[in-house]
C-alpha cells in the first residue's frame, strides 16, 4: 500500500497541477518584480514586465539566475520579504566556491518540511517509524530538512547528525531505527563500520534509507542495500531552492518525483540556454513558485538530468527526474573528454572494488593525467601478484571503455582514503590552469 503525505496534491491530475503552476508562477513573478530590484533589472534588460508572464508557457521568456548571481547579490540582494519576516537562514555546503545564504519565512520552512515529509512517506514511513537523521545539522540543509519532515510525519526522530559512526550504529540498534537519512557516502561508511564490528543486515532493524546531497550510482545503491538489508532511496534538493526534498524517490525506485506544486522544472541546453524537449538530457532549471523570502526564478542547478512524465506505478503524477549524473561543476574535462565521478564509481563497483576511491587529476607536460586511487579490499586481494595485476588491468580497460580515455589505477592500502561523514571528496584536481 503506497503511503502519501499529501495524497490529493501528490496524485493530482496533470491539468490541476498545471492550473496551480500557472496561477502561482504569475503571482510569484509579480512578487519578485515588486520586491527584488536585482531580478527586476534583469527582467527590464529583456524588456519584460510581469504582464508578459501569463502562464507556465511564458516561463522561457524569463532571465536565468545562476550561482554567480547569488554570489553577486550576497547576502540580501535576492531577499523578497522584510528581514523581520524571516526566521532562518541555511547555507550551501561550500564544496564549490563561496557560500550562498538562503532565507526562509516560517511558511517557507513549512513548504520545505512538507516536501521532506512526502519523501519519508514515499519510502513507507509512518508515525510508527523511528527515523535517524545522520545528515549534518547546522548551516547544511540535510539535517534540518529531514528532521522537520520526520516531525511532520510523526516519526520518533533521532537527531544524531553526522559523525561518531559506532554511536550511530548503537542508536540504530538500541532505539530500533527503521529509517536512516544521510549522504550515500556516509551510508556506505556506516555499512563498512557495521561489517568491521561483525554486524550483518539481520543485526540492524533498518528497513529504508533516504540518501542524497551527492551523486551516487545504482551499483552503490545495491551495495548499501545488501550490506544493511534495506531499500535505499534517493532524495534531491539544493539550498538555493529550499533543501532536500525538492524531488524524492518513491517505491518504484526509478527516478525522483519533483514537487511540482512548489517547483517548476525545465531542462535546458547548458551551452545555449534553450529549453529542450521532455526526455532530453540537459541542465535542470528550477523556479520556486510558492516560497516568499528567497524565491528564485529559473535558477540553473548545473545538474545534468532527464525528465519524464510517464505514469509511475506509485500513483504520483509529478514529473520524475533521473538521478543526476553529477553537477556540471563536478564534471571533469580531461583531455577534452567529459568525465563524471559517478561513471568511475560504476566501473569500480562492477569490477568488485568498493566505493572508496579518489580521483586525482594533474597536468604533466601539458597533458592531463587521470589517476584513480582505489583501496584494496579483502575480497580483491590474493597472494598472487599476477592475478592482482590482471584485475587492475581489467579495471583500466573497463574505465577506458566507459570514459573513452586512459586512466591510471593505483591500488592503495585500506582506510587510507579519508572517509566522509558528509559529502565525500572524490576529486583532487591539481591542474594549474
Amino acid at each position: 500500500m503506497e503511503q502519501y503525505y499529501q495524497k490529493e496534491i501528490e496524485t493530482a491530475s496533470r491539468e490541476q497541477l498545471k492550473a496551480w503552476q500557472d496561477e502561482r508562477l504569475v503571482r510569484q513573478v509579480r512578487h519578485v518584480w515588486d520586491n527584488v530590484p536585482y531580478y527586476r533589472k534583469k527582467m527590464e534588460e529583456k524588456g519584460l514586465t510581469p504582464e508578459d508572464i501569463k502562464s507556465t508557457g511564458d516561463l522561457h521568456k524569463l532571465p536565468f539566475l545562476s550561482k554567480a548571481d547569488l554570489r553577486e547579490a550576497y547576502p540580501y540582494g535576492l531577499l523578497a520579504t522584510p528581514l523581520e519576516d524571516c526566521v532562518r537562514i541555511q547555507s550551501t555546503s561550500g564544496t564549490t566556491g563561496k557560500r550562498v545564504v538562503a532565507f526562509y519565512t516560517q511558511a517557507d520552512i513549512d513548504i520545505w518540511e512538507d516536501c521532506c515529509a512526502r519523501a519519508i512517506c514515499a519510502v513507507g514511513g509512518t508515525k510508527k517509524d523511528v527515523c535517524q537523521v545522520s545528515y549534518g545539522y547546522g548551516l547544511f540543509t540535510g539535517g534540518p530538512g529531514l528532521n522537520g519532515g520526520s516531525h511532520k510525519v510523526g516519526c520518533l526522530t533521532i537527531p544524531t547528525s553526522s559523525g561518531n559512526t559506532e554511536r550511530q550504529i548503537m542508536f540504530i540498534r538500541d532505539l530500533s531505527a527503521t529509517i536512516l537519512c544521510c549522504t550515500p557516502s556516509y551510508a556506505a561508511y556506516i555499512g563498512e563500520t557495521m561489517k568491521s564490528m561483525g554486524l550483518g543486515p539481520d543485526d540492524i532493524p533498518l528497513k529504508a534509507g533516504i540518501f542524497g546531497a551527492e551523486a551516487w550510482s545504482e551499483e552503490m545503491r545495491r551495495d548499501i542495500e545488501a550490506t544493511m538489508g534495506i531499500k535505499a532511496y534517493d532524495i534531491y534538493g539544493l539550498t538555493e531552492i529550499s533543501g532536500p526534498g525538492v524531488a524524492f524517490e518513491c517505491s518504484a525506485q526509478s527516478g525522483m518525483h519533483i514537487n511540482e506544486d512548489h517547483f517548476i522544472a525545465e531542462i535546458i541546453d547548458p551551452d545555449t540556454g534553450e529549453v529542450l524537449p521532455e526526455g532530453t538530457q540537459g541542465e535542470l532549471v528550477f523556479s520556486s513558485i510558492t516560497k516568499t523570502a528567497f524565491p528564485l526564478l529559473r535558477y540553473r542547478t548545473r545538474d545534468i538530468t532527464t525528465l519524464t512524465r510517464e505514469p509511475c506505478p506509485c500513483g504520483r503524477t509529478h514529473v520524475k527526474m533521473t538521478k543526476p549524473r553529477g553537477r556540471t561543476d563536478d564534471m571533469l574535462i580531461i583531455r577534452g573528454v567529459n568525465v563524471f565521478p559517478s561513471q568511475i564509481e560504476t566501473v569500480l563497483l562492477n569490477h568488485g572494488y568498493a566505493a572508496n576511491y579518489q580521483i586525482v587529476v594533474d597536468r604533466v607536460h601539458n597533458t592531463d593525467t587521470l589517476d584513480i586511487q582505489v583501496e584494496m579490499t579483502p575480497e580483491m586481494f590474493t597472494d598472487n601478484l599476477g592475478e592482482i595485476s590482471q584485475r587492475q588491468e581489467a579495471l583500466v580497460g573497463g574505465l577506458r571503455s566507459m570514459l573513452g580515455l586512459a586512466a591510471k589505477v593505483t591500488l592503495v592500502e585500506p582506510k587510507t582514503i579519508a572517509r566522509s561523514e558528509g559529502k565525500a571528496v572524490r576529486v583532487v584536481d591539481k591542474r594549474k590552469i
Partner: protein
Amino acid sequence: MAIKQISVFLENKPGTLLKMTGVLAENKIDMRALSLAETKDFGIVRLIVDDVYTASTVLKDKNFISILTDVVGVLIPDEPGGLDKVLRVLAGANINVEYMYAFLGGRNIHRACMIFRVGDARAAENALGTWGIKILSQDEIASF
C-alpha cells in the same frame, strides 16, 4: 602438514613496510622468514612467523589486508647441491613452483629452510617425503 604463510598487501612507497614491522614488533611477533614481491605501485609481503593467529589478528586490527596461504617448508642441508636435489624431486613429480624463498641456519648454522609455494602442497609433500626429504611443520618452523 603444510605451513601457513601470511601474505600482506602493501603500497610500494617509503615507510609502509616499517608500519607493518612496527605492528609485529609491538606484538612480539618473531619473523622466521620474509619475502617481498613487488610491482611499481604495490607489493605483497610474505611472512612466516612464530604465531600466525596473533600476527594475522593484529594486522587486521591495524587495517592491513592479509590472507593465509599454504606453503611447504623443506629442510635442506646447507651444502652444494642441497636445493638441486629438492627441485629434482618436484620436477620429477611434475609440480610447478610458483615462488620460493630461503632462510638459512636459524639456530643451527649447518642447515637451511626453503619455503615453496606450489600448485599442490600435498602432492609436493608426498613426493619429497618419498625421497626422505624433511618437511617442516608449523611448530618446527616456529622454533627453527
